[in-house]
């Protein structure tokens, strides 16, 4: 297949180096309200569909199944149940820094009280034997909050 082209003993690889691609992600009216709730009130706000009544977290403008615009806000959590979880032991590169990420950490899907969808976050427990689907958890807020998902430090088992 290779033909006779380039019978070179050496195969070169080209490295990108650390190219940082910056983004200014706008939160828009919905997520701004959501993040302000975390930052200013330590509260988790969701949107409710006027048509089917589902409560969405993270909040958003459109209910997919109804294609309806949502403008009713409801508070959910801060407690909920574990819907799924996994303890991450596979080391990989943090795409935001290009540096190796330390493991283990626990990725948890929390069905907050009052919500119909779950929120993905961290759990402060990395021993799978101590975690089970259905366990109750509570959001732990940081003291210093800036208006991001990390205003919740993690969820803890209760």
């Amino acid at each position: 297949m290779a033909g006779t082209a380039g019978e070179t003993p050496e195969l070169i690889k080209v490295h990108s180096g650390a190219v940082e691609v910056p983004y200014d992600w706008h939160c828009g009216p919905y997520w701004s309200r959501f993040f302000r709730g975390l930052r200013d009130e330590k509260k988790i706000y969701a949107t409710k569909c006027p048509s089917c009544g589902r409560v969405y977290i993270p909040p958003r403008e459109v209910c997919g199944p109804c294609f309806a615009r949502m403008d009713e806000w409801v508070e959910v959590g801060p407690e909920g149940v574990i819907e799924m979880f996994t303890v991450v032991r596979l080391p990989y590169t943090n795409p935001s820094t290009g540096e190796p990420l330390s493991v283990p950490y626990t990725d948890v899907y929390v069905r907050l009280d009052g919500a119909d969808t779950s929120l993905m976050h961290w759990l402060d427990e990395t021993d799978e034997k101590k975690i089970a689907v259905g366990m109750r958890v509570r959001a732990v807020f940081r003291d210093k909050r800036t208006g991001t998902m990390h205003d919740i430090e993690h969820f803890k088992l209760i």
Partner: protein
Amino acid sequence: MPEGKPETIFDVVDKAGMLVQKGRIKVPYTWAAGKVASKFLVGLRDERRIYGIRCPECKTVFVPPKKLCHKCMVEMSEWVELGDEGVLETFTIVHYGEPTVHPVQPPFAYGVVKLERADTGMVHLIGEADLASLEEGQRVRAVFNDIRRGHYLDIKYFKPV
């Protein structure tokens, strides 16, 4: 939480309640050059020579070289050693800076150089030049870096002869 946990967002701007989160993507990449491009890049590094490749059907000499002629869709295997001189076909003088991707500070020039015996133009930097007096048709010559690593930038730039 473990040390060095991932955090995409490193700054938040609050514009009257509307938030903008500043983040980034910084994934490192390594691309295989393949056999054909490797020969070209090794040629730059070890011999300070520029190799082109000729299509057996349409006879076009491509530089930088590639495995397949896009017009005939046939594999090429005939290497052509090109000189390091050619003609500046077109150019631009760049006045803005973008340190993330620009190898040099503005103002600087890019040019399309048609090397002798080649049928395609080679895009590269133009250096050691009075930018205001650059002209199409001018002869230019490749200047190689002293430290070479098998890379397109082993040619530092082309300079007016």
